């Protein structure tokens, strides 16, 4: 029984879920290769949000010690660990995106298009040609 309190209290999870599904949908549904990468990025951003929101402590402040290192024992700090994890994940995400984009550039060079269905058509034609030349060896024999 989702009460208003429950929904508002878990806002971050709802947002994360919606964003994640949007990203995943884009990856699956869009035919343009670059758009897929964008979708992937959305997907990954949702995950980052999820992690960071996990680390938030109510009433917590940024996890940085004061310069003079006079640490007030009453201070509540937000958990820095998820932030660190996400930094790593962001870097991984950047590397993935750049690699994906580089691949798209090469695909554009070779295929002249970056639309998934057109690429599929070209590849199917290639496969058909291959089967014509090499398919003979399959024989008809069981």
């Amino acid at each position, binding site marked *: 029984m989702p009460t208003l309190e429950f929904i508002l209290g878990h806002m971050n999870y709802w947002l994360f879920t919606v964003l*994640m599904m949007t990203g*995943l949908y884009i*990856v699956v549904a869009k035919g343009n*290769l670059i758009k*897929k990468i964008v979708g*992937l990025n959305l*997907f*990954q951003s949702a*995950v980052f949000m*999820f*992690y960071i929101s*996990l680390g938030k402590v109510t009433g917590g402040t940024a996890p940085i010690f004061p310069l003079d290192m006079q640490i007030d024992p009453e201070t509540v700090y937000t958990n820095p*660990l*998820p932030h660190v*994890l996400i930094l*790593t*994940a962001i870097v*991984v995400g950047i*590397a*993935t995106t750049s*690699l*994906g984009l580089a*691949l*798209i550039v*090469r*695909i554009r060079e*070779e*295929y002249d298009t970056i639309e998934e269905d057109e*690429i599929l058509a070209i*590849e199917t034609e*290639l496969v058909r040609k*291959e*089967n014509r*030349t*090499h*398919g*003979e*060896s*399959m024989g008809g024999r069981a």
Partner: protein
Amino acid sequence: MSAEALHTARTLSDHLPILVVLVPFLAAPLTVLIGSRRLAWPIAFGAALASFIVSVLLLLRVLDSGVISYAIGGWLPPLGIEYRIDAANAFVLLLVSAIGTIVLPYTIQSIKNEIPPRHQTLFYTMYLLCFTGLLGVVVTGDAFNVFVFLEISSLSTYVLVSMGARTDKRALTAAYDYLIMGTIGATFFVIGIGFLYAATGTLNMADIARYIQEHGTNRTLETAFAFIVVGMGLKAAVYPLHLWLPNAYTYAPSAVTSFLAATATKVAIYVLLRFMFTIFQPDFLFEMHAVRWVMMPLAILAMFAASLIAVFQSDFKRMLAYSSIAQIGYILLGIGMLSTTGLTAAIVHLFNHGITKAALFMGVGALVLRSGGSFYAKIEGMGKAMPFTSFAIVIAGLSLIGVPGTAGFISKWVLVQAAIEQGYWPLALAIVGSSLLAIIYVWRVIETLYMKQPAEGWTRQEAPLTMLVPLWIMAGATVWFGIDTDLTMTAARTAADGLLHGFMGGAASGY
């Protein structure tokens, strides 16, 4: 809760767990910085060989004195990152480093044939990075660290696969599809880790295991489990998450496929094992009927469907790719039985299939070198033109079928034994039934090589020695480990025991 750095003096042998990853990791940028095509290979080989030696030492130490624990930078777990090695990952470590080392001499001629000269140094860089990543995944005891190394290996894998573009431009789309699917898989894995962290407050595997043991499960943990299994399942090409594999294996350069087919999916399965058994523990799993009711049916489906598809392929490499999917089905079947024998079978098949597939893909690569393609039509009669290569392929093919005297037979034996022990008769029959399909697709290759006439004007031109020797080492290994099963079975059994009965009990050396 501050973690103190250890200030006790340590020798080199104490640092072995990190060295196994560090050496190739440092060697990778070294190849780029030096930039010389001639030096790239020696550096790579030196690094790989060093890792291999270290992994042998680690395995011997683990089998001797139990779990090894190593705190990186002296920062103690659970806050510091820990490398934790028991029989399971020592065994997989051995497999990965051995294959990585043996395939390297093979790459010399193979990539000269398949990759443009200006990319050849970078090939070795990527190879080393992939190698590092895989080793790191295996060796680490920290859940998030797995993700980091996994992505290191995955990204370099995507690059390696795409390097086959000169031979066939479909390598690019194959790499792209692999990238999309692999990233989704890895991200699912990260979501799972996130839930684990949210529920337990720690990322250290042993610590999470302890928490779960003390507090039991809740829905968050179950969700985490689901995400992790699906995510790693994608990386391990579990049916029906296998769609990236056939194209990636077929269009990648032969040397790359030889390396990947034997290691990448195996490492992913290892991660599955680690999470399923060490962290989530068998009792939790017994509650999770999902394992029995989802994993087993999918495994059987993989075994039959993939084998059947393999029968009808007209390309040797693609056939081997589908065969790999089927073999991963066998491994999952062993895991799904949740018994010591079943798990032993799964782990030993992980190893045996690794060496078998490495040998087969190396064989294909040699054939591709001389005949210019891997279609059956192109390799007809190669039994006469390349007798040594072909015979090695025959031996490895027999191992794939599971003929006695080969490694494949050993894993099939233990697998059927595990099924019969539990009284799962249909499973035992399913295992042998799908092996019969393997006979068909392997025999097609043998007939093509030996029973057909070679192309016009053929000469007897064997593959170069740098390709032939690794190929024969691997093929010989499939026979060796089919006859002397001491190492593989002991390691697998110890690993299975360790996984099923938790490695919480034993006091680790160096902790």
